[in-house]
């Protein structure tokens, strides 16, 4: 690891100022659970670390019947995992956090940090995409709101400009008759996922599909939302045959990268299994 300077701004405003000044020489650190490993391996060598972990104005979980949930970027995984509001309104998020790495990591790592590091196998993005979440980005020219699935651009890259930070995750209230499920495949527990899938269904009163969302991790450089597979369900009664059809369509969209643990072919195969299982599970929550 190379030497770096360290700045701990006292507010979001000051953070933006610091970023505007140092541009690409600076790197934000929150929980440091991914970044420190990257620095240790010399894969990144910022001149300055800007520490926002202690910014309490970014550490909150709120819920409003109309607006839904807002989670500040520096909220830890653990805080999300055990939040009564999360458990009541979006239990899938708490479940996801419960299986994210280990308690030590969850105590330090933040939800915003996880999204910003943009590891393509990250746990947080797929369920958020399934929940139709958006993100609030703050920069020198104010704020902008983007759908979750538009946040990531490539391996370890996001839409954030050098002087912007991710400030908040927003999740709309769950529509009635909605089921959401997420799970992931690992060989060793506590590891990063090899692949994972999140599926959400909202049904019409007649039981046909009003809306479907499918998002996977580990199957592309970014968390992959698969609209073609979602479209299979629209307006139809969801059956096992239909799920199988959607799974095949989803498979076409995936570009898995082989690694030491698994081949691309195997990853795709398992991702399809997980879409199928999560679709069944999401459906079972409504029926």
């Amino acid at each position, binding site marked *: 690891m190379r030497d770096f300077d360290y700045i701990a701004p006292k507010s979001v405003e000051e953070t933006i100022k610091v970023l505007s000044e140092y541009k690409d020489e600076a790197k934000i650190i929150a929980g440091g659970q991914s970044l420190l490993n990257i620095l240790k391996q010399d894969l990144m060598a910022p001149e300055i670390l800007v520490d926002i972990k202690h910014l309490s104005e970014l550490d909150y979980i709120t819920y409003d019947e109309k607006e839904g949930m807002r989670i500040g970027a520096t909220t830890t995984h653990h805080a999300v995992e055990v939040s009564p509001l999360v458990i009541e309104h979006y239990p899938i998020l708490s479940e996801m956090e419960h299986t994210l790495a*280990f308690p030590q990591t969850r105590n330090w790592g933040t939800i915003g940090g996880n999204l910003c590091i943009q590891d393509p196998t990250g746990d947080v993005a797929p369920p958020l995409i399934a929940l139709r979440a958006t993100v609030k980005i703050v920069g020198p020219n104010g704020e902008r709101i983007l759908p979750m699935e538009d946040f990531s651009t490539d391996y370890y890259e996001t839409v954030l400009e050098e002087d912007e930070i991710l400030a908040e995750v927003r999740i709309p209230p769950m529509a009635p008759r909605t089921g959401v499920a997420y799970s992931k495949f690992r060989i060793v527990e506590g590891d990063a996922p090899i692949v994972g899938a999140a599926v959400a269904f909202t049904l019409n009163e007649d039981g046909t599909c009003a809306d479907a969302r499918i998002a996977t991790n580990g199957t592309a450089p970014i968390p992959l939302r698969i609209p073609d597979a979602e479209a299979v369900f629209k307006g139809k009664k969801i059956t096992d045959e239909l799920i199988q059809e959607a799974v095949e369509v989803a498979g076409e969209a995936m570009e898995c990268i082989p690694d*030491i*643990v*698994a081949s691309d072919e195997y990853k795709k195969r*398992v991702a399809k299994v997980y879409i199928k299982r999560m679709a069944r599970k999401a459906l079972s929550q409504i029926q």
Partner: protein
Amino acid sequence: MSEFSVIGKPVRRIDGLEKVTGAAQYTTDIKLPGMLIGKMLRSPHPHAKILNIDTSAAEKLLGVKAVITGPRDTLGVKYSNWRRYPHLMDETALAMDRVRYIGEPIAAVAAVDADVAEEALSLIEVEYEILPAVFDPLEAMKDGAPQIHEGPTVRNNVSEARHFEFGNVDEAFKKCDYVREDTFYLHPVIHAFIEPYNSVARYEGDGKLTIWTSTQTPYYIQTLLAMALGLKEGNIRVIKPHVGGGFGGKMELFSDQVVAAILSMKTGKPVKVELTREECFEGGRRRHPMYYTLKTGYMKDGTILAKEAKLYTDGGAYNAMGPTSLYLSGFFQMFPYAIPNYRYDGFHVYTNKTPATAMRGFGGPQAEFTCDSQIDMIAEHLGMDPAEIRLKNRMKPGHVIPGLAKVESCGIKECIERAMESTGWKEKKGKLPKGRGIGMGCYGFMSGGVFNWINSPYAYSGAMVRVNVDGTVDVYIGSAEIGQGSDTVAAQIVAEKLGVPMSDINVVRGDTRTCPPDLGAWGSRQTLMVGNALIMACDQILDKLYKTAAALMGPNVVYDYAAKDGRVFIKERPERGLDFVEVVKAAIRADEGNQLIGRGYYTPHDKGMVSPAYSFGAQVAEVEVDEETGKVTLLQVTTAHDCGQVINELGVEGQLEGAFVMGQGYTLSENLVTDQGKILNPSFVDYKLMRAPDVPENFTSLMVETYEPEGPFGAKEAGEGLTNPNAGCIANAIYDAIGVRITDMPITPEKILKALDEKKKKEAKG
């Protein structure tokens, strides 16, 4: 055996408190005034000639205190544990003129801190001539393959061949109803100790040196370091602080130790060398990959008449402890079965990869995977219960392996039966729902090696026990506590023998200046060997105490005496006795104040070529296989282990559980992946170790107690044997669950899916 006070009881580790509170000192905690940091430059090439090393720029860097290279600053001595067999000694601390694997140390620097040392490394310029390299043992043995070592005893990269044979194998095959031949591949894994290789050396002038280092074998380090540095063995003091695991990977002299010493001698300052995790992968050691062929002849009733095993092992660039792994793999291939006709041919082959060496099981995990897999294939062919065929062919107490071993105590029958009973084997085998299965693996293992490759004139283990006037006891042992609990076992043995509480025992260990020589922690030798040495030492003390007690009490007939619960008393009349401390004081006064000391040693007599005693065990695993992903879940694992008399129940349990988890990772997830000699996963992110949540919740350790006449109180091995049966046991359970057999380790989910696909294709055709 309820008459024991501490033996066989679940005793808390004597180093437990300091370890769990973080107070325990490891080598990395040693910080000396003026200490410099040493770092090594390593080869980026798998095979190359070194034409020139230019260190001038590194030497000029501010903060650099010394830069050393092999040819300029070392004696260039080839060293290793093979002092008795010099043709096997092939490694130097720093490369002399050639590098043979990626990660081989070439030069080293000492600097004021780690950053400067690393900067200095980047300024060293090495000119290489790249040589063709070879990475697979079967390729390396072909004519025309690159030759990794020259020398009269190396041909086609084979550095050592092992052959043993008894009975008449060819005749026996002819008599057999069936003969089957199967081939297997075993993959490389690493020791994965939590504490990296690290050392602090302090040269004191006049040829005297102290080194603190993480090792399983302080005495080996002392003698081999003397050899590498040209110093006298007795002038080198090796201190082994607490050690964070070894598993066979820390039983040799390593470059960090030699380099720290030379840098300290050059600079006159203490020098610390600590490897990073990546360096432990690249510049460390690993378990041998092996190509195994087994030919086994058997009768219709399941009796195995003959076996022939052929093995090619990928040794990497240097011998390390490979020749012994090779020998033992062929040896354990027989265990725990009575094979009347056996032939083994093993070849240790050099490749341009990180050297492989001893690792928990020492050739056994590879042997038992192949043996246990094939026995199940035979059982299936004959329509027999795999447990029954194991019982039929099992070794019995008193079993002799001609020319190699004599097995005294042997509880394999009881182990198999108890494991079956505890798991409901008969109700489950072949009867579980699809996707679930049950499998068995069996093993036998050594309790210390009858190997003196280091060629030491000293006994295998030594001990000194001193009783102080207040009844407290100082125990001096050279055996190496590396986390396995051997110091606690030593303290228990002394407490039991002298009849004093555990809290009165002080164990003095890990320092070659004060402790007797001992060959160290390998081959599951410490309980048996240092245990016997301690018993001898305690008996000398007891002899003095009993005589003193007799003189003090003056009974009118000659009685036998005993020591227990802080008293020395007449054995037949326990009410007649004296306080232990009173007798100790009197004994010391009677001897003009001379300290009350006992000395003991142990060296095996007439115990064959391998070990004084053998442990046995049987393991049963129940698995569930996800047929859509290939993932294996362990539902229940039961081990019945015969370790003779249990010394520390908690210790045995811990060792069995640890050995199982290591075997679980070996079987299902761990794999050291290389491409052209480059390790692709040199980190614990990419190298998949099992972690706490992966350990099956239902793990049962059953201790089958036998009495081993050669063991202290009848005790045998408990720390290593159970590493061996896991792969075969799990593979057999997977076969029972889904009908596919993986013979190419590790058993990954992906391989299982492929095998299932092939099976479905076959079924569709047939």
